[in-house]
C-alpha cells in the first residue's frame, strides 16, 4: 500500500499516468492502456487475509485469483458465490474494476452485491475503506480510473452441491420463453448454447450433445426432496415450452468444461468475438435475427445474469479463403449488431476500451455523473488510468483503419 501511495505521489508530480493491471484478462480491450503511462502490476498482492465464518466473509488482496480463493474456501467446505469463467486467471480486484457478472450471479448477484468492504488508494494518495454500496459504485466498473483497490471484503456461500438439468429446444423463440421461466426454480445459473455452438463443440471437443439449442440449469440442492421438486418443476416448464429433456449423461463433463469452452478458438484460423447483454423481454427477436443478419452459422453462448437479462457471446468463424475486406465487413456487422443491442436496452458486459463512452448504458446516467464528479474530486491531475471508460474515440471504432480492424479480427477482442 505504501508503494502505491508513493507511486501516486510521483505520478501527480510528474503527470505520468498510472495504469493498474492484474490478471490482464478482461474483455473488450479492458487490459489495454488508453494513454501512455506506468503499469502498476498488482499480481503480487495475492494474499488471502482472512476467512471469517461468523459473518460469512472473506478478506483478500486484490490480485487473488478466483481459483486460489475457491481452493481456500473448499478447505472449509465453503464456496464462491459467483465468479467469471476466467476463474484460473481473473482476479477479484480486476473483476470489481471491470464490473463482473458470471456463473452464480443469477442467485448471488454481480460483484457489487457480494462486496462488504473495499480498501482503496485514491489517486490523491489518501487511503479509504468503504463499506457502503453507493461508495462501491465509484469503483465497480470504473476500470481502475478512480483508484487502486488494495483490499476486498466479500461474501462467500456454503458449499452446497449443484445439480444440473439439461434440455434442448428446436427453435430460439421457445428456448427464450423457457429461459424466462427459469426463475420459478431459483437456479444458481442458467447457461445456454445455440445449435451451431453445440455442433462445433461436438466436432472439436468430442462431445455427443444433441444437435439442438441446449440449456443447462444448475441449482444448489441440499436434500433429496429438494432435488425431486427441482426436477418436477423443470420438467413442467420444459414440457409447456415445447422443449426436450435430455439425460444427465449428456452433460457429464460439459459443466466441468465450462472454463475451457474458449479452447474451441484454437480450431479456428480466424474468428470474431463479441459480447453483449440484452433484456430478455425484447431481446428474443434480436437473438433470433442474429443468424439472418450476421451469419447463418454464428455460434452463440449465453448466461442469464439476472432473470430479465441474458449475456451472450457471439462467435463467428472466419474462413481463410475469405478476402480481408469480406472479413472486415463481417466484423463491422458484428459490431453494428452489438451497438443495435445497446439501442434496444442492452449493454456491453464492460466498457473496456472498445465501449468507452457506454458506461451509462450499463450503470445509468445518474451513476455516470456521480462517477465523473468523484473522479474529478479524487484525481485532479487525471493520472489514474486516464480516459479509460469515457474515451470518445472508441465510439468511432467502425471507422478505424482497415489494418487496425484486421488486427482486432485476429484476436485482440
Amino acid at each position, binding site marked *: 500500500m505504501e508503494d502505491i501511495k508513493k507511486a501516486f505521489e510521483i505520478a501527480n508530480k510528474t503527470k505520468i499516468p498510472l495504469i493498474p493491471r492484474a*490478471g490482464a*484478462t478482461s474483455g473488450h480491450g479492458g487490459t489495454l492502456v488508453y494513454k501512455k503511462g506506468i503499469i502498476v502490476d498488482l499480481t503480487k498482492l*495475492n494474499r488471502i487475509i482472512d476467512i471469517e465464518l461468523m459473518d460469512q466473509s472473506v478478506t483478500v488482496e486484490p490480485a487473488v485469483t478466483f481459483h486460489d480463493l475457491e*481452493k481456500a474456501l473448499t478447505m472449509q467446505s465453503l464456496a464462491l458465490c459467483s465468479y467469471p469463467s476466467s476463474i484460473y486467471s*481473473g482476479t477479484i480486484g480486476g473483476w470489481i474494476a471491470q464490473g463482473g457478472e458470471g456463473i452464480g450471479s443469477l442467485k448471488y448477484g454481480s460483484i457489487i452485491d457480494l462486496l462488504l468492504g473495499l480498501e482503496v488508494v485514491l489517486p490523491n494518495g489518501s487511503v479509504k475503506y468503504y463499506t457502503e454500496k453507493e461508495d462501491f459504485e465509484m469503483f465497480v466498473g470504473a476500470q481502475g480510473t478512480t483508484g487502486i483497490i488494495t483490499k476486498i471484503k466479500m461474501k462467500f456461500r456454503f458449499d452446497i452441491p449443484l445439480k444440473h438439468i439439461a434440455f434442448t429446444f428446436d427453435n430460439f423463440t421457445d428456448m427464450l420463453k423457457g429461459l424466462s421461466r427459469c426463475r420459478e426454480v431459483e437456479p444458481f445459473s442458467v447457461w445456454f448454447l445455440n445449435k451451431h455452438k453445440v455442433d462445433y463443440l461436438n466436432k472439436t471437443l468430442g462431445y455427443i450433445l444433441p444437435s439442438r439449442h441446449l440449456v443447462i440449469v444448475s441449482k444448489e440442492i441440499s436434500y433429496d426432496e429438494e432435488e425431486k421438486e427441482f426436477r418436477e418443476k423443470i420438467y413442467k416448464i420444459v414440457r409447456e415450452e415445447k422443449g426436450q429433456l435430455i439425460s444427465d449423461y449428456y452433460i457429464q463433463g460439459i459443466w466441468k468444461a465450462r472454463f475451457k469452452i474458449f*479452447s474451441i*478458438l*484454437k480450431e479456428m484460423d480466424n474468428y470474431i468475438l463479441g459480447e453483449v447483454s440484452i433484456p430478455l423481454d425484447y431481446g428474443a427477436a434480436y437473438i433470433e435475427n442474429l443468424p439472418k443478419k450476421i451469419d447463418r452459422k454464428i455460434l452463440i453462448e449465453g448466461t442469464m445474469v439476472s432473470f430479465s437479462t441474458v449475456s451472450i457471446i457471439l462467435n463467428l468463424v472466419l474462413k481463410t479463403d475469405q478476402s480481408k475486406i469480406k472479413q472486415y465487413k463481417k466484423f463491422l456487422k458484428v459490431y453494428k449488431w452489438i451497438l443495435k443491442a445497446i439501442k434496444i436496452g442492452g449493454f456491453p458486459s464492460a466498457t473496456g476500451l472498445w465501449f468507452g463512452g457506454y458506461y451509462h448504458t450499463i450503470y445509468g446516467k445518474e451513476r455516470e455523473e456521480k462517477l465523473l464528479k468523484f473522479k474529478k474530486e479524487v484525481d485532479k491531475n487525471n493520472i489514474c488510468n486516464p480516459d479509460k471508460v469515457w474515451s470518445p474515440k472508441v465510439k468511432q471504432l467502425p471507422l478505424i483503419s482497415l489494418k487496425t480492424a484486421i488486427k482486432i479480427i485476429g484476436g485482440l477482442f
Partner: protein
Amino acid sequence: MTNTNDFPLSIEKYVQQCIYCGYCSVCPTYKEIGWESNHPRGILKQIEKYINEDTSREEQKTLFQAVFDCTLCGACQNICLSDIPIIDIWIQMRKEAFDKGLWKQELVQVTEFVKTTHNIYGLEPEDRLKWTEYVNINLNRRVKKNKPVLFFFGCQASYSGKMMKIAESAVKVLRKAKVDFTVLGEDEWCCGSPIFLGGGFDLGKSLAKHNLEEIKKLGIKTLVTACSGCYRTFKNVYPNILGEEWNIEVLHFSELISKLIKEGKIEFKKELSEKITYKDPCELVRHTGVIQAPRDVILNIKNVRYEELISNKENALCCGGGGLLKINNRPLVEQVNDRLMDEIAYSEADIVVNNCPLCLDTISLGVKKKNLNVEVIDMTELVARAMGIKEKEEDKD
C-alpha cells in the same frame, strides 16, 4: 535462433496460438516471482520476439532465466486453452540456451558427470549397486540376466543415501511377489532425464542408445521403475529419440503393483492404521497420465484411512523439485514447496506417500522446515509395509 531437428516443433506457430487467456497463471513459479516475464504467457511473448526481432543481451538473459525458472510441472500445458505444447517449447529454448553457452555452471557440471560416470552425482559407475551392501541385500544372481522384466533403479535410488530405501523396498517387494526380474548393475546408465530436460539431446541420445542395447541383449520385455523422472523419459522421450526400436513395455512401480494385485499375485496382509495421503508427482500425473494405479494400490490396503490432498490428480501442486529448478534456482524450490506444505498440513495425514525420489527429497525437506508431524515415504516402502515385509528381513533370493 538456431535450428534444432531433435524435436521438430514449430515454435513460431505455437507462440502465435496463444489467446492471452492467462489460465497458465496457475504456474507455481510465476505465482512466487510475480512478473509477467515469468508468466508462461509472457515467456511465449518473449520467445515470439526472440524469433522475429533482434533482442538485446539483457532481454535474452531474462528469457532464458525464465525458461529455467520452471519446474516443468506441466500445470500450464495442462490448462492451456490453446493446447500449446509449452514444455517442449521450453525444452527447445533450453537447448537454445545451451547452444549459446548460457547454461548454468551447475548444469554443465551435472552433464559432465553423466557423460563421464553415467550418473548425475559423478560417483563411480561400478558403485551403482553399492547400496545393497548397506542393507544386506545380494543382487549378484540378478545382475544382467536374461529375464522378462528389468527393474531400473535410477541414479537417485542407486546413489543417494536418502533414497536408498526406495531401492531396498522395491527389491524386497518384487522378490516377495515372485517377479522374475533382472537389474543392469554397472550398465544401468542414467536414463538421461536431467539431460533431456536441459535440452541436451545429443548426450541424452547416447545414453538412451546404451540402455536400449543392454535391454535388447537381455531380451527384456518390460521395464519397471519407481522413479517418475525415469518413467517419463522411457515413456515419452525414448520413443521420440529411438523410434520404433524402442518397443519395450514401460511400467511405473505402482502400475506393476496395481496389476499384480488385480492378478491376485500380491496380497496386502498388514493393516496400516495411519491416515494416508498421496502426492501425485507432476511427471506421472500430467506428463504420462498415471493417476489411478497409485490410488488403486493404496486403496487395497486393509481398512486404509485415505484422503486426497486438496489439489490432486491433474491439478496436483508441484513440490518445486523438478525441471532442474534445484540446480537453477534453489530458493525458488522452497517457495514453491511451501504451498504444497500448507496442503499437506491441512490434510492432517500421518503419512504422505510419494511416487518419485525427487518429490520425496523435496517434500522431506519441506516437512522438516515447517516442522510438520507427518512421515514422508515412497510408494515402494508403503507397499513393503502393507505386504508385511519386515525392515530387517533376511536376504532371500
